[in-house]
């Protein structure tokens, strides 16, 4: 017979840690738990829980109880029952050890059932919840709807005189208030947009239509950007005496999606035009050049080649965005030879750097690791980063790419001496369609997609991109890919 292990929150947590699977992680976790303070005396209960995965189900049942006991009014009864339980010593594998005296009440009975079968317990809980919902619905009062609380749209009933008669939970949340404060309040005092007030008043005008809707863009807090709500109102009775039912829908995401589609179309069209114009001009140049004017013809071919590659990238950017949108992006993992990729990158961008007299340097260790990843997508990431660095660095600056290998990850840094990004904008540059506000960017085109795509791709590789930047001094983008997916290149 195994010695019983006292069941404390600590035992629970240790057992949960056992779920971590690997012993190393569990050891680390256990050390962590050791460092944490235990709860008070009431949690020092004893039971037959042997540490280890086999006990996890029993422990889990206790966790559920601990968690749900807190929710019930009779929590104290359960604690007392558990105290009684702690007084005994129980045998291993004795399911009865976890059972309580049924005389302790419904809670104890519920607990026993829970211990016996998990499935049965879940069914019971569902039943109890259903009964609660039904009794509440018939009880009414407090201006709540209960049944309408199951609706994700806000619903308000406005009575005669424009007072709120009832509001559901979603409605209270959209109006950023509580039901208690809302019920009985004058609708005009709630601070909704004037157009909503007009909408409601308009319905009370004799001879008006019975229903109307209005969409309002609310500024909201700066960090969350605007919210768009659609208010639709319907008159329930006749004329001024009737009450009005107001429904509030949050359509922010739908409107933003519409806007981003439009922006994508516009900026993609704009981005495509530049290389197309260049190609057309250089084709003309080629045709016009004398047959023996080798240098002009060569230059034309070069530019046409370069511009078509640029077209290709814009198209793949746009495709990546639509794949990301649809959630259908698939990475094809394989060996990514970073040294070859970085060399290619250098030759791709050399001309562009020379045009702006930018010093471009690649600082690579003698042994560059091979990473597991999607070659094409990874190339897109580095292309976007180096492309940006060159784009936003003024004439005469420098761009450097370095690679470092640590125990856990491979870090590729792209550093430039460009415009830099203001503190407040550093997070935003990774958002789609966001372009930093800086007058120096006038005339530099961009879709605002490159960094959003790059970060998404790196994250799908289990890594991340971070940015450190100072306005007017330059920016450094660091791509980190975990080493678990990397292995040293065979020498």
């Amino acid at each position, binding site marked *: 017979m195994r010695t019983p292990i006292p069941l404390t*929150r600590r035992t629970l947590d240790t057992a949960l840690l056992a779920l971590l*699977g690997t012993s190393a992680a569990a050891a680390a976790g256990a050390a962590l738990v050791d460092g944490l303070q235990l709860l008070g005396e009431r949690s020092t209960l004893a039971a037959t829980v042997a540490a280890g995965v086999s006990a996890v189900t029993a422990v889990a049942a206790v966790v559920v109880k601990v968690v749900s006991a807190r929710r019930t009014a009779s929590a104290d009864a359960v604690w007392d029952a558990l105290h009684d339980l702690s007084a005994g010593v129980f045998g291993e594998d004795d399911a009865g050890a976890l059972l309580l005296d049924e005389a302790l009440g419904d809670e104890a009975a519920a607990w026993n059932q829970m211990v016996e079968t998990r499935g049965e317990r879940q069914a019971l809980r569902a039943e109890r919840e259903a009964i609660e919902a039904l009794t509440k619905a018939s009880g009414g009062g407090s201006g709540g709807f209960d049944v309408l609380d199951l609706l994700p749209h806000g619903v308000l009933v406005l009575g005669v005189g424009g007072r709120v008669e009832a509001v559901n939970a979603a409605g209270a949340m959209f109006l950023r208030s509580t039901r208690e404060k809302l019920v009985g309040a004058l609708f005009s005092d709630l601070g909704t947009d004037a157009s909503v007030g007009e909408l409601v008043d308009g319905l009370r005008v004799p001879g008006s239509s019975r229903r109307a809707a209005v969409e309002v863009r609310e500024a909201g807090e700066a960090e*969350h950007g605007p919210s768009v709500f659609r208010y639709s109102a319907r008159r329930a009775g006749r004329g001024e005496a009737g009450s009005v039912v107001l429904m509030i829908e949050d359509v922010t995401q739908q409107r933003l999606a519409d806007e981003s589609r439009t922006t994508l179309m516009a900026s993609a069209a704009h981005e495509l035009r530049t290389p197309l114009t260049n190609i057309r001009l250089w084709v003309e140049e080629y045709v016009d050049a004398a047959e023996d004017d080798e240098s002009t013809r060569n230059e034309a071919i070069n530019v046409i080649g370069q511009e078509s590659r640029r077209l290709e990238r814009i198209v793949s950017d746009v495709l990546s965005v639509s794949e990301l949108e649809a959630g259908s992006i698939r990475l094809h993992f394989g060996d990514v030879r970073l040294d070859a990729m970085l060399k290619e990158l250098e030759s791709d961008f050399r001309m562009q750097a020379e045009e702006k007299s930018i010093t471009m340097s690649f600082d690579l260790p003698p042994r560059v690791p091979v990473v597991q990843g999607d070659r094409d997508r990874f190339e897109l990431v580095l292309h976007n980063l180096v492309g940006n660095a060159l784009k936003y660095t003024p004439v005469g600056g420098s761009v450097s790419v370095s690679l470092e290998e640590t125990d856990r990850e491979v870090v590729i840094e792209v550093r430039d001496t460009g415009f830099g990004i203001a503190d407040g904008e550093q997070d935003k540059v990774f958002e789609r369609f966001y372009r930093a506000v800086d007058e120096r960017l006038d005339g530099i085109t961009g879709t605002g997609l490159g960094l959003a795509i790059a970060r998404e791709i790196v994250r799908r590789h289990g890594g991340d991109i971070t940015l450190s930047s100072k306005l007017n001094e330059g920016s450094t983008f660091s791509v980190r890919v975990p080493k678990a997916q990397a292995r040293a290149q065979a020498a």
Partner: protein
Amino acid sequence: MQIDTELNGGVRVLRPHGPLVRAEAEEFQTRLRQTRGTSRGRFVVDMTDLHFVDSAGLEALLDLADEANAAALSLKLANTNETVREVLDLTGMTEHFEMFADVHSAVRSFL
């Protein structure tokens, strides 16, 4: 507890780092409640860097889920790792949350 946030369209994405235990659980709960208020419920939790949940963490998650359910919303979790999912499964709590394979599908669920 470090919680990175970013805006994805109109949806706030919260990415907590480290294990969700004890004091962190309380802070986590406070931060999420704030975000629910300011974002009017448009937020998701990216669980990528949340590797472990203890009993206090479970309570915090369950409280938040229950509050959301009370307003016919749900607590949307993305990228939940194997361990955390197993804990939620074993404790029969999975049904309280809306789980997504990645942040994008979670964000798209607001459409």
